[in-house]
Protein backbone atom coordinates (compact mmCIF):
# COMPACT_ATOMS: atom_id res chain seq x y z
CA UNK A 1 0.00 0.00 0.00
CA UNK A 2 1.29 3.39 -0.87
CA UNK A 3 0.81 6.32 1.43
CA UNK A 4 0.40 9.83 0.11
CA UNK A 5 1.46 12.65 2.37
CA UNK A 6 -1.25 15.21 2.97
CA UNK A 7 -0.48 18.47 4.66
CA UNK A 8 -3.78 20.27 4.07
CA UNK A 9 -5.41 19.28 7.37
CA UNK A 10 -2.26 20.25 9.24
CA UNK A 11 -2.06 23.69 7.69
CA UNK A 12 -5.78 24.17 8.38
CA UNK A 13 -4.95 24.03 12.09
CA UNK A 14 -2.46 26.89 11.82
CA UNK A 15 -4.13 28.85 14.63
CA UNK A 16 -3.51 26.27 17.35
CA UNK A 17 0.01 25.78 15.98
CA UNK A 18 0.66 29.53 16.20
CA UNK A 19 -0.62 29.55 19.79
CA UNK A 20 1.86 26.80 20.51
CA UNK A 21 4.69 28.85 19.02
CA UNK A 22 3.83 31.75 21.34
CA UNK A 23 3.81 29.52 24.41
CA UNK A 24 7.14 28.01 23.40
CA UNK A 25 8.61 31.50 22.93
CA UNK A 26 7.18 32.64 26.27
CA UNK A 27 8.62 29.62 28.10
CA UNK A 28 12.01 30.05 26.42
CA UNK A 29 12.10 33.76 27.20
CA UNK A 30 11.21 33.29 30.87
CA UNK A 31 13.69 30.43 31.22
CA UNK A 32 16.50 32.41 29.56
CA UNK A 33 16.03 35.52 31.72
CA UNK A 34 15.47 33.54 34.94
CA UNK A 35 18.18 31.01 34.20
CA UNK A 36 20.70 33.73 33.42
CA UNK A 37 19.87 35.58 36.65
CA UNK A 38 20.30 32.40 38.71
CA UNK A 39 23.44 31.55 36.77
CA UNK A 40 25.10 34.91 37.42
CA UNK A 41 24.22 34.89 41.13
CA UNK A 42 25.31 31.28 41.66
CA UNK A 43 28.50 31.74 39.66
CA UNK A 44 29.41 34.81 41.71
CA UNK A 45 28.68 32.79 44.87
CA UNK A 46 30.79 29.93 43.57
CA UNK A 47 33.77 32.07 42.65
CA UNK A 48 33.74 34.76 45.36
CA UNK A 49 31.54 33.29 48.11
CA UNK A 50 32.41 31.58 51.41
CA UNK A 51 33.11 27.84 51.41
CA UNK A 52 29.70 26.70 52.66
CA UNK A 53 27.94 28.70 49.94
CA UNK A 54 30.24 27.20 47.31
CA UNK A 55 29.30 23.73 48.52
CA UNK A 56 25.58 24.52 48.36
CA UNK A 57 25.81 25.95 44.84
CA UNK A 58 28.09 23.12 43.74
CA UNK A 59 25.56 20.54 44.96
CA UNK A 60 22.72 22.34 43.16
CA UNK A 61 24.68 22.36 39.92
CA UNK A 62 25.71 18.70 40.14
CA UNK A 63 22.25 17.42 41.11
CA UNK A 64 20.52 19.27 38.29
CA UNK A 65 23.11 18.46 35.65
CA UNK A 66 23.11 14.75 36.43
CA UNK A 67 19.35 14.14 36.36
CA UNK A 68 16.95 14.39 33.39
CA UNK A 69 14.82 17.50 32.87
CA UNK A 70 11.75 15.28 32.43
CA UNK A 71 12.19 13.83 35.92
CA UNK A 72 12.73 17.31 37.39
CA UNK A 73 9.53 18.43 35.70
CA UNK A 74 7.57 15.45 37.06
CA UNK A 75 8.96 16.07 40.55
CA UNK A 76 7.75 19.65 40.54
CA UNK A 77 4.41 19.05 38.85
CA UNK A 78 3.38 15.69 40.35
CA UNK A 79 5.59 15.57 43.44
CA UNK A 80 5.13 18.96 45.08
CA UNK A 81 1.34 18.61 45.56
CA UNK A 82 2.22 15.94 48.18
CA UNK A 83 3.37 18.89 50.29
CA UNK A 84 0.28 20.92 49.50
CA UNK A 85 2.02 22.99 46.82
CA UNK A 86 -0.16 22.62 43.76
CA UNK A 87 1.10 24.43 40.68
CA UNK A 88 -0.58 24.78 37.31
CA UNK A 89 1.28 23.29 34.37
CA UNK A 90 2.67 26.53 32.98
CA UNK A 91 4.07 27.66 36.35
CA UNK A 92 5.58 24.24 37.06
CA UNK A 93 7.14 24.22 33.59
CA UNK A 94 8.63 27.68 34.07
CA UNK A 95 10.07 26.76 37.47
CA UNK A 96 11.55 23.51 36.14
CA UNK A 97 13.10 25.23 33.12
CA UNK A 98 14.54 28.13 35.13
CA UNK A 99 16.01 25.81 37.78
CA UNK A 100 17.40 23.51 35.10
CA UNK A 101 18.92 26.23 32.93
CA UNK A 102 20.24 28.02 36.02
CA UNK A 103 22.56 25.08 36.78
CA UNK A 104 23.99 25.05 33.28
CA UNK A 105 24.46 28.82 33.09
CA UNK A 106 26.18 28.77 36.49
CA UNK A 107 28.89 26.58 35.06
CA UNK A 108 29.17 28.66 31.89
CA UNK A 109 29.34 31.99 33.74
CA UNK A 110 31.81 30.56 36.24
CA UNK A 111 34.08 29.38 33.43
CA UNK A 112 33.80 32.85 31.88
CA UNK A 113 34.74 34.59 35.12
CA UNK A 114 37.69 32.25 35.62
CA UNK A 115 38.86 32.79 32.04
CA UNK A 116 39.99 36.32 32.95
CA UNK A 117 43.74 36.06 33.64
CA UNK A 118 44.64 36.40 37.32
CA UNK A 119 47.47 38.81 36.48
CA UNK A 120 44.98 41.37 35.13
CA UNK A 121 42.97 41.28 38.35
CA UNK A 122 46.16 41.68 40.39
CA UNK A 123 47.22 44.56 38.15
CA UNK A 124 43.88 46.25 38.88
CA UNK A 125 44.32 45.81 42.60
CA UNK A 126 47.85 47.19 42.47
CA UNK A 127 46.48 50.29 40.72
CA UNK A 128 44.35 50.81 43.80
CA UNK A 129 40.99 49.75 42.34
CA UNK A 130 38.45 48.33 44.77
CA UNK A 131 37.04 44.83 44.36
CA UNK A 132 33.90 46.17 42.73
CA UNK A 133 35.87 48.42 40.39
CA UNK A 134 38.06 45.51 39.34
CA UNK A 135 34.91 43.53 38.59
CA UNK A 136 33.29 46.44 36.74
CA UNK A 137 36.27 47.61 34.66
CA UNK A 138 38.44 44.51 34.24
CA UNK A 139 36.55 41.26 34.75
CA UNK A 140 33.03 41.60 33.44
CA UNK A 141 33.56 42.57 29.80
CA UNK A 142 36.09 39.91 28.73
CA UNK A 143 34.20 37.37 30.86
CA UNK A 144 30.93 38.13 29.05
CA UNK A 145 32.67 37.86 25.73
CA UNK A 146 34.18 34.50 26.69
CA UNK A 147 30.92 33.02 27.93
CA UNK A 148 28.60 34.37 25.23
CA UNK A 149 28.94 31.61 22.58
CA UNK A 150 28.43 28.84 25.16
CA UNK A 151 25.44 30.68 26.64
CA UNK A 152 23.90 31.15 23.21
CA UNK A 153 24.11 27.48 22.31
CA UNK A 154 22.82 26.46 25.73
CA UNK A 155 19.84 28.80 25.22
CA UNK A 156 19.04 27.24 21.86
CA UNK A 157 19.25 23.74 23.37
CA UNK A 158 16.89 24.92 26.10
CA UNK A 159 14.40 26.32 23.59
CA UNK A 160 14.31 22.88 21.94
CA UNK A 161 14.05 21.16 25.32
CA UNK A 162 10.93 23.17 26.21
CA UNK A 163 9.09 20.65 24.00
CA UNK A 164 9.21 18.35 27.04
CA UNK A 165 6.65 20.49 28.91
CA UNK A 166 3.98 19.07 26.61
CA UNK A 167 4.23 15.98 28.84
CA UNK A 168 2.52 17.85 31.69
CA UNK A 169 -0.06 19.22 29.22
CA UNK A 170 1.35 22.71 28.85
CA UNK A 171 0.06 23.86 25.48
CA UNK A 172 3.34 24.60 23.75
CA UNK A 173 4.24 23.94 20.13
CA UNK A 174 4.76 20.23 20.67
CA UNK A 175 1.47 19.90 22.50
CA UNK A 176 -0.25 21.65 19.59
CA UNK A 177 1.20 18.92 17.38
CA UNK A 178 -0.35 16.14 19.42
CA UNK A 179 -3.73 17.92 19.36
CA UNK A 180 -3.64 18.28 15.59
CA UNK A 181 -2.46 14.68 15.30
CA UNK A 182 -5.37 13.35 17.32
CA UNK A 183 -7.83 15.37 15.23
CA UNK A 184 -6.45 14.58 11.79
CA UNK A 185 -4.45 11.34 12.19
CA UNK A 186 -1.78 12.91 9.97
CA UNK A 187 0.97 12.10 12.47
CA UNK A 188 3.98 12.10 10.18
CA UNK A 189 2.93 15.30 8.45
CA UNK A 190 2.23 17.07 11.74
CA UNK A 191 5.59 16.24 13.23
CA UNK A 192 7.36 17.20 10.01
CA UNK A 193 5.73 20.64 10.09
CA UNK A 194 6.45 21.05 13.80
CA UNK A 195 10.05 19.95 13.27
CA UNK A 196 10.49 22.57 10.54
CA UNK A 197 9.00 25.23 12.84
CA UNK A 198 11.40 24.32 15.65
CA UNK A 199 14.25 24.43 13.15
CA UNK A 200 13.12 27.92 12.13
CA UNK A 201 12.98 29.02 15.76
CA UNK A 202 16.45 27.60 16.40
CA UNK A 203 17.85 29.49 13.40
CA UNK A 204 16.08 32.68 14.50
CA UNK A 205 17.55 32.44 17.99
CA UNK A 206 21.03 31.67 16.64
CA UNK A 207 20.76 34.67 14.32
CA UNK A 208 19.58 36.91 17.14
CA UNK A 209 22.43 35.84 19.43
CA UNK A 210 24.98 36.27 16.65
CA UNK A 211 23.67 39.79 16.02
CA UNK A 212 23.88 40.64 19.73
CA UNK A 213 27.43 39.29 19.83
CA UNK A 214 28.46 41.43 16.86
CA UNK A 215 26.84 44.54 18.33
CA UNK A 216 28.24 44.10 21.79
CA UNK A 217 31.66 42.63 21.32
CA UNK A 218 33.02 43.03 17.81
CA UNK A 219 32.81 46.73 16.99
CA UNK A 220 34.96 47.98 19.82
Amino acid at each position, binding site marked *: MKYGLQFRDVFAAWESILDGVWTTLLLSGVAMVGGLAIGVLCAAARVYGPTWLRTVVGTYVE*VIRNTPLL*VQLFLIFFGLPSFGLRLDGLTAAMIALVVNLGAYTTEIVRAGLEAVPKAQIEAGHSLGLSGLQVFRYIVIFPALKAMFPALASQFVLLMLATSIVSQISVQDLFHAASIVQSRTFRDFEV*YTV*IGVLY*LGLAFAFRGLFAAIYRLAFVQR
Partner: protein
Amino acid sequence: MIREFGLIDVMYLVGAARWTLVLTATAFAGASVIGLAIAIARILPLAPVRWLAAAYIHIVQGTPLLVWLFLIFFGLPLIGISVNPWLAAAVAFSVYGSAFLGEIWRGALVSIARTQWEAGASLGLSLGEQLRYVIIPQSVRVAIPPTVGFLVQLIKNTSLAAVIGLVELTREGQLTAAGTYKPFAVYITVACIYFLMCFPLTQWSRSLERKLDVAR
Protein backbone atom coordinates in the same frame (compact mmCIF):
# COMPACT_ATOMS: atom_id res chain seq x y z
CA MET B 1 -5.85 -0.70 44.15
CA ILE B 2 -3.47 1.60 46.00
CA ARG B 3 -0.40 -0.06 47.44
CA GLU B 4 2.49 1.25 49.50
CA PHE B 5 5.71 2.47 47.93
CA GLY B 6 8.14 0.00 49.40
CA LEU B 7 11.48 -1.67 48.88
CA ILE B 8 10.09 -3.91 46.17
CA ASP B 9 9.20 -0.83 44.10
CA VAL B 10 12.70 0.54 44.51
CA MET B 11 14.05 -2.80 43.29
CA TYR B 12 11.76 -2.61 40.27
CA LEU B 13 13.00 0.90 39.52
CA VAL B 14 16.61 -0.24 39.77
CA GLY B 15 15.71 -3.12 37.47
CA ALA B 16 14.19 -0.69 34.98
CA ALA B 17 17.41 1.36 35.03
CA ARG B 18 18.94 -1.61 33.24
CA TRP B 19 16.81 -0.78 30.19
CA THR B 20 17.95 2.82 30.37
CA LEU B 21 21.52 1.54 30.16
CA VAL B 22 20.72 -0.89 27.35
CA LEU B 23 19.05 1.90 25.37
CA THR B 24 22.00 4.21 26.03
CA ALA B 25 24.46 1.57 24.85
CA THR B 26 22.43 0.82 21.72
CA ALA B 27 22.05 4.52 20.93
CA PHE B 28 25.72 5.16 21.55
CA ALA B 29 26.73 2.35 19.21
CA GLY B 30 24.45 3.65 16.45
CA ALA B 31 25.45 7.26 17.04
CA SER B 32 29.15 6.34 16.93
CA VAL B 33 28.91 4.74 13.51
CA ILE B 34 26.96 7.62 11.94
CA GLY B 35 28.85 10.23 13.96
CA LEU B 36 32.26 9.01 12.79
CA ALA B 37 31.11 9.13 9.19
CA ILE B 38 29.77 12.67 9.72
CA ALA B 39 32.96 13.83 11.44
CA ILE B 40 35.12 12.53 8.59
CA ALA B 41 32.74 13.93 5.98
CA ARG B 42 33.09 17.33 7.65
CA ILE B 43 36.85 17.44 7.04
CA LEU B 44 37.06 15.83 3.61
CA PRO B 45 38.58 18.01 0.88
CA LEU B 46 35.31 17.78 -1.05
CA ALA B 47 33.03 20.77 -0.54
CA PRO B 48 29.58 19.25 -1.33
CA VAL B 49 30.18 16.39 1.12
CA ARG B 50 31.22 18.87 3.80
CA TRP B 51 28.09 20.96 3.20
CA LEU B 52 25.81 17.92 3.37
CA ALA B 53 27.34 16.83 6.66
CA ALA B 54 27.10 20.37 8.06
CA ALA B 55 23.45 20.59 7.00
CA TYR B 56 22.74 17.26 8.69
CA ILE B 57 24.25 18.50 11.94
CA HIS B 58 22.38 21.82 11.76
CA ILE B 59 19.03 20.16 11.13
CA VAL B 60 19.37 17.51 13.82
CA GLN B 61 20.72 19.96 16.40
CA GLY B 62 17.99 22.46 15.50
CA THR B 63 15.03 20.19 16.22
CA PRO B 64 13.92 18.69 19.53
CA LEU B 65 14.71 15.07 20.25
CA LEU B 66 11.02 14.56 20.96
CA VAL B 67 10.21 15.47 17.35
CA TRP B 68 12.73 12.91 16.05
CA LEU B 69 11.27 10.28 18.32
CA PHE B 70 7.76 10.88 16.98
CA LEU B 71 8.82 11.35 13.36
CA ILE B 72 10.55 7.98 13.38
CA PHE B 73 7.85 6.29 15.42
CA PHE B 74 5.16 7.40 12.95
CA GLY B 75 7.33 7.68 9.85
CA LEU B 76 8.91 4.23 9.60
CA PRO B 77 5.53 2.50 9.21
CA LEU B 78 4.84 4.73 6.18
CA ILE B 79 7.75 3.11 4.34
CA GLY B 80 6.58 -0.34 5.40
CA ILE B 81 8.77 -0.95 8.42
CA SER B 82 6.72 -2.01 11.42
CA VAL B 83 8.06 -0.37 14.54
CA ASN B 84 8.05 -1.11 18.19
CA PRO B 85 9.10 1.57 20.69
CA TRP B 86 12.54 -0.01 21.00
CA LEU B 87 13.38 0.26 17.31
CA ALA B 88 12.00 3.80 17.08
CA ALA B 89 13.93 4.92 20.16
CA ALA B 90 17.15 3.25 19.02
CA VAL B 91 16.95 4.93 15.60
CA ALA B 92 15.91 8.34 16.97
CA PHE B 93 18.65 8.42 19.59
CA SER B 94 21.24 7.24 17.06
CA VAL B 95 20.30 10.08 14.71
CA TYR B 96 20.25 12.61 17.52
CA GLY B 97 23.50 11.41 19.07
CA SER B 98 25.33 11.23 15.76
CA ALA B 99 24.97 14.98 15.19
CA PHE B 100 26.54 15.77 18.56
CA LEU B 101 29.24 13.08 18.38
CA GLY B 102 29.98 14.15 14.80
CA GLU B 103 30.61 17.71 15.99
CA ILE B 104 32.70 16.60 18.98
CA TRP B 105 34.83 14.26 16.89
CA ARG B 106 35.28 16.76 14.08
CA GLY B 107 36.69 19.11 16.72
CA ALA B 108 39.09 16.39 17.83
CA LEU B 109 40.17 15.64 14.25
CA VAL B 110 40.90 19.27 13.37
CA SER B 111 42.79 19.73 16.64
CA ILE B 112 45.60 17.63 15.13
CA ALA B 113 48.20 19.85 13.48
CA ARG B 114 48.15 20.21 9.70
CA THR B 115 51.81 19.12 9.63
CA GLN B 116 50.80 15.65 10.82
CA TRP B 117 48.73 15.20 7.65
CA GLU B 118 51.61 16.49 5.56
CA ALA B 119 54.07 14.19 7.31
CA GLY B 120 51.80 11.26 6.53
CA ALA B 121 51.46 12.35 2.91
CA SER B 122 55.22 12.72 2.53
CA LEU B 123 55.61 9.13 3.75
CA GLY B 124 53.42 8.12 0.82
CA LEU B 125 50.27 7.35 2.83
CA SER B 126 46.95 7.79 1.06
CA LEU B 127 44.29 10.06 2.54
CA GLY B 128 42.53 7.10 4.16
CA GLU B 129 45.80 5.78 5.57
CA GLN B 130 46.72 9.20 6.96
CA LEU B 131 43.38 9.24 8.79
CA ARG B 132 43.64 5.64 9.93
CA TYR B 133 47.26 5.57 11.12
CA VAL B 134 48.18 9.17 11.91
CA ILE B 135 45.23 11.41 12.66
CA ILE B 136 42.59 9.25 14.36
CA PRO B 137 44.93 7.59 16.90
CA GLN B 138 46.11 11.03 18.07
CA SER B 139 42.66 12.61 18.13
CA VAL B 140 41.14 9.81 20.23
CA ARG B 141 42.89 11.20 23.29
CA VAL B 142 41.36 14.62 22.70
CA ALA B 143 37.94 13.15 21.95
CA ILE B 144 37.47 10.92 25.00
CA PRO B 145 36.61 13.48 27.73
CA PRO B 146 33.84 15.27 25.77
CA THR B 147 32.55 11.91 24.52
CA VAL B 148 32.14 10.68 28.09
CA GLY B 149 30.43 13.99 28.86
CA PHE B 150 28.04 13.41 25.99
CA LEU B 151 27.30 9.93 27.33
CA VAL B 152 25.81 11.64 30.39
CA GLN B 153 23.55 13.72 28.11
CA LEU B 154 22.51 10.54 26.35
CA ILE B 155 21.60 8.72 29.57
CA LYS B 156 19.47 11.67 30.66
CA ASN B 157 17.83 12.02 27.26
CA THR B 158 16.80 8.36 27.10
CA SER B 159 14.16 9.39 29.66
CA LEU B 160 12.23 10.81 26.68
CA ALA B 161 11.70 7.28 25.36
CA ALA B 162 9.12 6.97 28.14
CA VAL B 163 6.90 9.20 26.01
CA ILE B 164 6.49 6.56 23.30
CA GLY B 165 5.85 3.92 25.95
CA LEU B 166 9.24 2.27 26.22
CA VAL B 167 9.52 0.97 29.77
CA GLU B 168 12.83 2.31 31.05
CA LEU B 169 13.55 4.08 34.31
CA THR B 170 11.30 7.14 33.84
CA ARG B 171 8.38 5.13 32.44
CA GLU B 172 8.67 2.63 35.29
CA GLY B 173 8.61 5.65 37.60
CA GLN B 174 5.40 6.90 35.98
CA LEU B 175 3.80 3.47 36.37
CA THR B 176 4.91 3.17 39.99
CA ALA B 177 3.70 6.70 40.78
CA ALA B 178 0.31 5.87 39.28
CA GLY B 179 0.05 2.68 41.32
CA THR B 180 1.19 3.99 44.68
CA TYR B 181 0.04 7.63 44.67
CA LYS B 182 3.44 8.60 46.05
CA PRO B 183 4.78 10.64 43.13
CA PHE B 184 7.29 12.62 45.18
CA ALA B 185 8.96 9.58 46.74
CA VAL B 186 8.94 7.75 43.41
CA TYR B 187 10.43 10.56 41.33
CA ILE B 188 13.05 11.36 43.98
CA THR B 189 14.09 7.70 43.82
CA VAL B 190 14.16 7.86 40.02
CA ALA B 191 16.25 11.04 40.15
CA CYS B 192 18.67 9.38 42.59
CA ILE B 193 19.13 6.39 40.29
CA TYR B 194 19.85 8.71 37.34
CA PHE B 195 22.28 10.64 39.49
CA LEU B 196 24.10 7.46 40.50
CA MET B 197 24.49 6.54 36.82
CA CYS B 198 25.50 10.00 35.59
CA PHE B 199 27.61 11.50 38.35
CA PRO B 200 30.49 8.97 38.19
CA LEU B 201 30.69 9.53 34.43
CA THR B 202 30.72 13.32 34.93
CA GLN B 203 33.57 13.00 37.42
CA TRP B 204 35.45 10.61 35.15
CA SER B 205 35.10 12.98 32.21
CA ARG B 206 36.46 15.82 34.35
CA SER B 207 39.48 13.86 35.58
CA LEU B 208 40.24 12.76 32.01
CA GLU B 209 40.12 16.41 30.96
CA ARG B 210 42.53 17.40 33.70
CA LYS B 211 44.95 14.63 32.75
CA LEU B 212 44.82 15.76 29.15
CA ASP B 213 45.54 19.34 30.21
CA VAL B 214 48.56 18.23 32.21
CA ALA B 215 49.85 16.11 29.34
CA ARG B 216 49.88 19.11 27.02
